């Protein structure tokens, strides 16, 4: 390293390096932008496919925002159709009452409002406790836990501790409440969407 580097030289070399970096990043950005969007779409599409009844349309293309009564934010509803008739929908719902923040879950419903499936999209719940919700509420061996096939309008979708019909996750009642809270919100949005479609 030479002594007495001039200010000009310092500014130029830092500037040149930053420009090269920016150019490189812009190039990488341009080639990865599409795959990133694709990956996000695929994740969403997979979740929709996993939770809804069999469909032959493109639910993502028909995405609709529904504002359930008394809610602060709209929910995204992805309608599933067969031969043009509505057979159910996937609803992306959330609850901000999780143990350590917001949870977001994709719920599926058939045309009668029965739960057909769910897929947890995002959460920050405690690993090993709260994150058991991925599987807990679709355990086909336990009717007390399972929400699949049940109609939230007829079943009391609350944890048994609160006098409801569903057994919450052991040692993770707050997460279970948040999960069922999100389910209730999704169900309301779906019923509202279905009824507005019928009219």
């Amino acid at each position, binding site marked *: 390293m030479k002594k007495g580097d001039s200010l000009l030289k310092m500014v130029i070399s830092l500037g040149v390096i*930053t420009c090269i*970096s*920016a150019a490189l*990043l*812009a190039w*990488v*950005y341009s080639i990865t932008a599409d795959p990133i969007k694709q990956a996000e779409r695929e994740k969403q599409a997979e979740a929709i496919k996993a939770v809804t009844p069999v469909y032959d349309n493109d639910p993502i293309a028909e995405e609709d925002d529904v504002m359930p009564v008394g809610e602060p934010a709209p929910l995204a509803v992805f309608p599933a159709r067969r031969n043009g008739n509505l057979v159910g929908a996937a609803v992306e719902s959330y609850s901000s*009452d999780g*143990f*350590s923040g917001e949870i977001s879950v994709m719920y599926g419903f058939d045309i009668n409002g029965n739960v057909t499936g769910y897929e947890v999209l995002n959460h920050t719940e*405690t690993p090993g406790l709260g994150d058991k919700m991925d599987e807990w509420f679709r355990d086909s061996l336990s009717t007390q836990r399972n929400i699949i096939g049940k109609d939230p309008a007829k079943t009391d979708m609350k944890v048994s501790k609160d006098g409801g019909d569903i057994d919450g996750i052991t040692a993770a009642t*707050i997460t279970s409440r948040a999960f069922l809270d999100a389910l209730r919100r999704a169900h309301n949005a779906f019923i509202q969407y279905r009824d507005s479609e019928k009219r």
Partner: protein
Amino acid sequence: MLEYLSIIITAIFVNNIVFAQFLGICPFMGVSRRLTSATGMGMAVTFVMAIATCVTWILQNYVLVPAGLEFMQTIVFILVIATLVQMLEIILKKITPALYQALGVFLPLITTNCAVLGVAIIVVRNGMGLTQSIVYAVATAIGFTLALWIFAGIREQLELTDVPRPMRGVPIALICAGLLAMAFMGFSGILIK
């Protein structure tokens, strides 16, 4: 108002930056040997974190996003933090030599404190507003200082204790930090509505 209170409690206790989010561990281990240096470091971090979050938030929302340059985020943020730290050093030296005396040695360490960059990125990712972001940054820094204080107190005692040779220094400090993290877990689940 309640919203800000909730942010503050969460950032200081529930999601403490050191014990729950694992950020800023290097200065946490490095400067927590003495209570006085812990205080100095805590103040310096609070100062830089508040200003850096404010500047990066404005840059992100008024320059990078409108220009479609979100991919420059990491570079811009780290350069802003490094420049800010340098500027602060010069300004403090000129205006309040006393404060510079107290904080000076800690300032260069802050550039590579991942808590500062971490908070700047977290507020952008969570889509917080400007006021929320600044409140969050200050509260996080207070949480960091609190962690540093408690830990410095413990380590001053620890130095007088006879610890098995391989456990001396960092290993026993880490285990103490683990026990503290366990204590902080008691705060989790607190919700203010």
